[in-house]
């Protein structure tokens, strides 16, 4: 490994050292505030490191990793999400009795896992990244262990995630037998020759898709989503909904790009089917939900279905649309779960829809942010969600994927119904008196409100001036596409 390769890995090394630094701080008996601020600064350091190494990209670290433009976009998005989630975590965990310090170690380890997924080009690194992410998540979901439901959610996720990893490994083993190689380019090269057997390859891809669909919570592997979203602490729910999905989608895109997955007829049929049933199933299940965490879980199933429509074409336009969609989806969910975090009290999370009745009259800022976030999820113009959905539709229509596109449009209308139902609750009259929340350090309250405002500006900004974001993504991707030739 030469120095340029080390330089390209610098952001990931900083990210890995973040959890070590937190462990040392805990050993030195520092307070929650110190740990929180250090964690925040470490994440800022990761962003700085990414900016510092931008000229050495793209660079492959054979045989496991490749740091290119696409990895930079996805990692940047992941680190941004973790920055915001970290801020929300302080307010959430400061109110609870449990010791919140180790939480930050696990969050940073999970982030590292997702970041490794975005740069992996080999089955071993995919597996390590995925497990780093999932094992941190097992502990994170069950973190507030005195609430029975957290342990239940952790147990459910643990059993199902471990089983899906086994499916992934079985699929990888079959592909390894077929091609004799584990790195993506090697597999792609082997697939060009005639010596491989299609049956093994198809079975392997099928088994791997089971695991990917599970991690992305796509129908028919979505059953864990609602329970885990409901049982996990709100910042962890936020983490699952954004960071883990970004990481898994990144590796899916890279693998598909290497082996030209979309040129296989069976793969297109499987992915279209999963996308369609996810869009329909997610939206229908969400309609009658009274619990906002479960509702967002079902809506995230539908949104990942929309994302797969952008993945189907398999060309540059599709990947750009997918990235923009993920960006819009992540900031929207960050804002929505941020409000849930702010409203959650000491005893229970604010997950019942009743807790939101008349929110706008009690706290206009929070009400407005949640309204914009929900409108963005529904895909109303002037928000980021609309542009995201438009880009996805555009990519689908260009490839004449009529069936998924039509389902997307119809299910979006169904989705509008339950998002508007929440919004009407926000503006309803209320007589209930809500207890005043505990006063926290003013700096953190200001920080959290600041983060929410930044998200609001991003949501509206990306909705009104989307070209800035899209051009940025295109620039990074051009860097990424250069790597194919070396």
């Amino acid at each position: 490994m030469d120095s340029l390769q080390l330089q390209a890995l610098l952001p990931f090394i900083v990210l890995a050292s973040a959890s070590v630094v937190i462990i040392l701080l805990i050993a030195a008996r520092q307070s929650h505030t110190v740990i929180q601020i250090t964690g925040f600064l470490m994440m800022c350091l990761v962003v700085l490191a990414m900016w510092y190494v931008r000229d050495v990209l793209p660079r492959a670290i054979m045989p496991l990793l490749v740091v290119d433009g696409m990895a930079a976009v996805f990692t940047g998005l992941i680190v941004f999400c973790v920055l915001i989630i970290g801020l929300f975590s302080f307010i959430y965990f400061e109110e609870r009795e449990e010791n919140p310090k180790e939480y930050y170690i696990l969050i940073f380890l999970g982030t590292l896992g997702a970041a490794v997924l975005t740069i992996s080009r080999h089955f071993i690194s995919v597996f390590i990244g995925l497990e780093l992410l999932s094992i941190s998540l097992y502990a994170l979901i069950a973190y507030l262990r005195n609430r029975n439901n957290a342990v239940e959610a952790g147990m459910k996720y643990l059993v199902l995630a471990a089983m899906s990893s086994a499916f992934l490994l079985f699929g990888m083993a079959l592909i390894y037998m077929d091609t004799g190689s584990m790195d993506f380019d090697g597999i792609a090269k082997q697939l060009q020759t005639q010596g491989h057997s299609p049956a093994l390859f198809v079975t392997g891809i099928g088994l791997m898709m089971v695991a990917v669909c599970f991690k992305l919570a796509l129908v028919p592997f979505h059953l864990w989503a609602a329970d885990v979203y409901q049982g996990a602490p709100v910042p962890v729910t936020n983490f699952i909904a954004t960071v883990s999905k970004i990481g898994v989608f990144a590796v899916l895109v890279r693998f598909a790009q290497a082996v030209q997955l979309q040129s296989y007829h069976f793969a297109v049929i499987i992915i279209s089917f999963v996308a369609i049933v996810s869009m329909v199933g997610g939206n229908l299940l969400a309609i009658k939900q009274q619990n906002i965490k479960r509702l967002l879980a079902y809506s995230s199933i539908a949104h990942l279905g929309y994302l797969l429509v952008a993945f189907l074409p398999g060309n540059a336009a599709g990947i750009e649309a997918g990235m923009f969609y993920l960006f819009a989806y992540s900031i929207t969910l960050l804002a929505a779960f941020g409000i849930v975090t702010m409203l959650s009290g000491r005893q229970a999370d604010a997950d019942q829809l009743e807790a939101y009745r008349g929110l706008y009259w009690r706290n206009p800022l929070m009400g407005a942010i949640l309204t914009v976030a929900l409108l963005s999820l529904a895909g109303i113009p002037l928000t980021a969600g609309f542009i995201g959905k438009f880009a996805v539709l555009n990519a689908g229509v260009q490839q004449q994927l009529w069936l998924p596109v039509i389902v997307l449009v119809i299910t979006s209308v169904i989705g509008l119904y339950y998002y508007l139902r929440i919004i009407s609750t926000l503006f309803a009259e209320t007589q209930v008196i809500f207890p005043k929340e505990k006063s926290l350090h003013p700096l953190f309250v200001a920080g959290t409100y600041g983060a929410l405002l930044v998200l609001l500006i991003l949501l509206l900004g990306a909705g009104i001036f989307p070209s800035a974001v899209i051009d940025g993504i295109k620039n990074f991707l051009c860097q990424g596409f250069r790597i194919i030739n070396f």
Partner: protein
Amino acid sequence: MPIQYYIALASALFCIGVVGVLTRRNAIIVFMCIELMLNAVNLLLVAFSKMHYAKAAAAGAVTTAGTEGQLFVFFIMVVAAAEVSVGLAIIVMMYRNVHSVDVNFLNRLKN
């Protein structure tokens, strides 16, 4: 031995694992079944690694073909150990909460 025997054995072990996870009610046994699935994959990988090595060696020349499969097995073993340690911790917490490791008790989360 032909490679088909290894594939059949590993597939059988894997299927036993899947059926066990889906039907057993005791959390510890569910865990054992997951381990069985992972170890079935390990067996498969070692067999394939040997197969690729033999194929490359038959074509002549000293070769490193097949090392990846064996390397992967080590990673799987390490990760499985980590997974079990976290999993058992969660089972212990579950036992403290409901005084049982029966997964049927995990039914509180619903609308």
